[in-house]
């Protein structure tokens, strides 16, 4: 009975003409003006699809299920494997890449360069020209890392004989994988494929991987979530700043390494390698995030995003309730600061699977924990806090394991809800490195970007379609 309204104080949300606020405030009513703009990039049909999904019980329930699965996941570093054996459905002549699916001819420079490097590393071809001919000739299958429970930063290249981190979600038993971080400068993930790059990859396979495997065994696995949480209290957001997490991991690892039979010279080399790379932990962070989000994937009706990834040409997202479909849009250019001698004109569009961290409520979403990061775009610590707070409006909940000191230890906003993104127009924020658009030059800067709205409007249409026209 609407008569109940007559017993209450009238409190109005005003959507549209702002002049209507006057009569309400002047006569003692409460009113809040909504900063309204046509949602869904002004597509009325998508706006209608969205309206059918807002506060829909089946979606809310599905999201709670998905979010609980994400929240209760316990990612544990359980071992070091070889991609060809560890990853599900990994073919013999298959190379995995970052982002949504893409054909060789459409790939960006760094990805092509990295694939050529991987072919050389695998020994499938003896020189660059032959490797390129092999890649373009259809002799190698290219698939997204995400199709094999894996993630990789930047070009995200994983070939069969590369070592991979194996992370197990001990709550649900699902596994996620990520390659190793090679360090800054000329690296395969930026498309570099010179002899020094291949040599380092070989060393990583032959010396680093066995040592780490033995070390992880001695440790009996490493709980990654507490380590990430601790790093958030030490100024990392575990995407673009991993200085604390890398140190925490190394601290655990050193004594374990010394208890293995690894030759001391190798231990020293391994420790030097990790200590010299503040991003070493990134790939562990990514695998942990992937393990947590895969647990939330595949809940029918859920509007929670379970992957955001870029291949340097397209930005793609996957949503829990829409299966394995990618919703893609052109990858944006990253705004940020550049190393000496480089500018935006040199930059490749957004690249890599590392936005899995933002999808999991860290990275840009936990920027309040990492004020240093916001300086990439000339911001203040307050901006970092504001960025995190803005993300609370487009997420399903808060991850109580990832608390943020600057927000009075509130949990970081997590579980991007496509409905809220499309309704508010607030785009997920992503902290990221910037690769040179040409292969092999490497990282040329870092900055902040936003996930394109078009991915989310497509996903809303698809989810509404999957649920049907029923109210």
């Amino acid at each position, binding site marked *: *009975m*609407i*008569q*109940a*309204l*007559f017993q*209450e*104080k*009238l*409190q*109005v*949300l005003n*959507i*549209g*003409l702002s*002049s*209507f606020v*006057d*009569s*309400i405030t002047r*006569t*003692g*009513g*409460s009113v*809040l003006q*909504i*900063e*309204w703009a*046509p*949602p869904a990039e002004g597509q*009325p049909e998508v706006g*209608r699809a*969205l*309206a059918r999904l*807002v*506060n*829909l019980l089946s979606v809310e329930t599905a999201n709670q299920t998905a979010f609980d699965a994400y929240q209760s996941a316990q990612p544990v570093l359980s071992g070091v494997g070889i991609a060809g054996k560890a990853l599900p459905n990994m073919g013999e002549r298959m190379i995995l890449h970052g982002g949504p699916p893409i054909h060789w001819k459409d790939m960006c420079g760094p990805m092509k360069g990295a694939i050529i490097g991987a072919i050389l590393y695998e020994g499938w071809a003896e020189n660059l020209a032959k490797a390129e001919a092999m890649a373009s000739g259809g002799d190698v299958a290219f698939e997204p890392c995400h199709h094999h429970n894996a993630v990789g930063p930047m070009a995200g290249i994983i070939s069969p004989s590369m070592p991979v981190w194996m992370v197990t979600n001990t709550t649900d038993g699902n596994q996620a994988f990520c390659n190793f971080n090679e360090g800054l400068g000329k690296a395969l993930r930026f498309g570099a494929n010179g002899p020094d790059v291949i040599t380092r990859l070989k060393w990583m396979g032959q010396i680093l991987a066995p040592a780490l495997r033995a070390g992880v065994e001695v440790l009996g696995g490493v709980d990654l979530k507490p380590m990430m949480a601790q790093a958030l209290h030490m100024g990392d957001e575990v995407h673009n700043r991993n200085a604390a997490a890398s140190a925490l991991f190394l601290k655990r690892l050193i004594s374990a390494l010394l208890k293995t039979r690894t030759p001391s010279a190798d231990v020293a080399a391994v420790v030097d390698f990790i200590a010299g790379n503040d991003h070493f932990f990134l790939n562990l962070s990514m695998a942990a995030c992937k393990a947590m989000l895969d647990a939330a994937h595949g809940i029918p009706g859920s509007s929670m995003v379970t992957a955001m990834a870029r291949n340097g040409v397209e930005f793609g997202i996957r949503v829990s309730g829409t299966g394995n479909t990618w919703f893609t849009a052109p990858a944006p250019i990253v705004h940020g*600061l*550049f*190393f*000496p*001698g480089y500018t935006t004109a040199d930059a490749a569009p957004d690249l890599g699977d590392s936005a899995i961290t933002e999808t999991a409520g860290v990275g840009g979403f936990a920027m309040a924990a990492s004020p240093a*990061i916001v*300086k*990439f775009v000339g911001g*203040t*610590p*307050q901006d970092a806090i*504001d960025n995190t*707070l*803005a993300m609370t*409006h487009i997420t399903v909940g808060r991850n109580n394991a990832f608390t943020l000191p600057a927000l009075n230890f509130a949990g970081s906003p997590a579980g991007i809800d496509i409905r*809220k993104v499309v*309704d*508010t*127009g*607030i785009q997920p924020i992503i902290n990221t490195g910037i690769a040179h658009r040409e292969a092999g030059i490497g990282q040329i*800067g*870092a900055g902040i970007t936003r996930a394109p709205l078009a991915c989310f409007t497509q996903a809303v249409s698809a989810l509404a379609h999957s649920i049907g026209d029923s*109210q």
Partner: protein
Amino acid sequence: MARATKIIRNFYRDSVSLMQLSSTFGKLPGVEQASAVMASANNISLLQEAGLLTEPVEASANDLLIALQGEADALESALAEAESSLKQPSASSTANEQSRGISPRSIEMGLANLVGANLALISTPGEYAAAEAFKALRLGLNVMLFSDNVDLKDEIALKRFAQERDLIVMGPDCGTAIINGIPLAFANIVRRGTIGVVGASGTGLQQVTCLIDRWGGGISQAIGTGGHDLHRDVGGISMLQGLKALAADPCTSVIVLISKPPSPEVAGKVLETASSAGKAVVVNFLGADPDRVRRENIYPAVTLEDASAAAVALADGRTPEARTTRVTSPSITPLVSGQQYVRGLYSGGTFCYEASLLLKKELGQINSNTPVEPGDRLSDVWTSRKHTVIDLGDDLFTRGRPHPMIDHRLRNERLIKEASDPEVAVILLDVVLGYGSHPDPAAELVPAIQNARDLAAKAGRRLAVVGFVCGTAADPQNLSKQETALRDVGVILAESNAQAVRMAASVALEAGVGGRS
């Protein structure tokens, strides 16, 4: 191309700050490329590769190195500026200021800020309005949908959806409402009281609430339904909801229903519900036969004015009396032979329709852009014919310009045109006050009325201007101030539309008699 370097000893900045500084220095006048780094061996070699450094430097990793490349004469001052900006105190010392939360961008976000919200007032463009209304309903909010151009199909779906959840959708195309004493959209500030109104017409609601206020009564609630609510396919969902809510409301003693005549089955349902409301219900189905409306507890009213008067009487415990609204035209001197027609220039659609109905009874055929009889439709809405009433708020006139309640230019132009027609005896006008309307309509109208009368006078005619002001003393425009300004320019003012129409008719009738004599 020149290069310059500067070393600042033992001055540490983290790498992100340094990249930011490099970016800032790169924008200094005359500088092409700039870099600020901690002078580690690695960074020095990077600068050499980038061509910023050609000579060896004596520096350590604890020293900050600035390297610039650009116009020779600009570099020295650029270096000095770079160094001084480095030594400025940090700009982020305002970090403790209150967090700048972002303003709400969606209804759902708004609800997080205004937790007790119970109504969404939606006035977005029509193509987005239904979706916003659905969201509001899904989030448990009642809806007032001011937007027009919403499909009938959407209206039906919205209202059924709302009904299932015990919520109401007022609209689409609902121009006004007063809920719990709060005026919404185009509404007047009226005294609170015990009369509850449900209306399918915005100006109809404004007229009734203002007249009730004028005659000492007060309003408990005024609920708009939008003009299509009593359409057969909608079935009067909102009017029935409003009626039932007012019937159950202890603060309401008398109910008024306003609409154009509904489809017979909807009318039956509404009247049946009204008859069993347990309260007196005054019904004004504009143009309907009172005998077909009359039921137990139902008081039919032919005009908005009648409905208002009946409601005030009933609320006072009196039996409504038939009003003698025949008004003698005070001091309107006879007009020149040939002046015989009424020209109504309305900003309120319902006023225009009511004028057509009343004038028809007295004067016969009334031409209009929104005629009572389809055959009386003007072929050219820009040119009046004989007795004519025009709704200037019709889409035909508002395309690409503001509504005539806000912008009086179109009506003023038409006023001059009518005044120059030698057959015109009387101009009929409505003036609507309240929130949303022009802040001072009299100020806009007075010069145009003066011009119109002067124009007629020059041609030896005498033009009568009859009108009424729909508003209250508490309205921002102030009823008596508006009325005084209009009277001062010779407008004959009535209290209501019905009275004004009858005055105009009597002027025309007298003129007709005079013309014959």
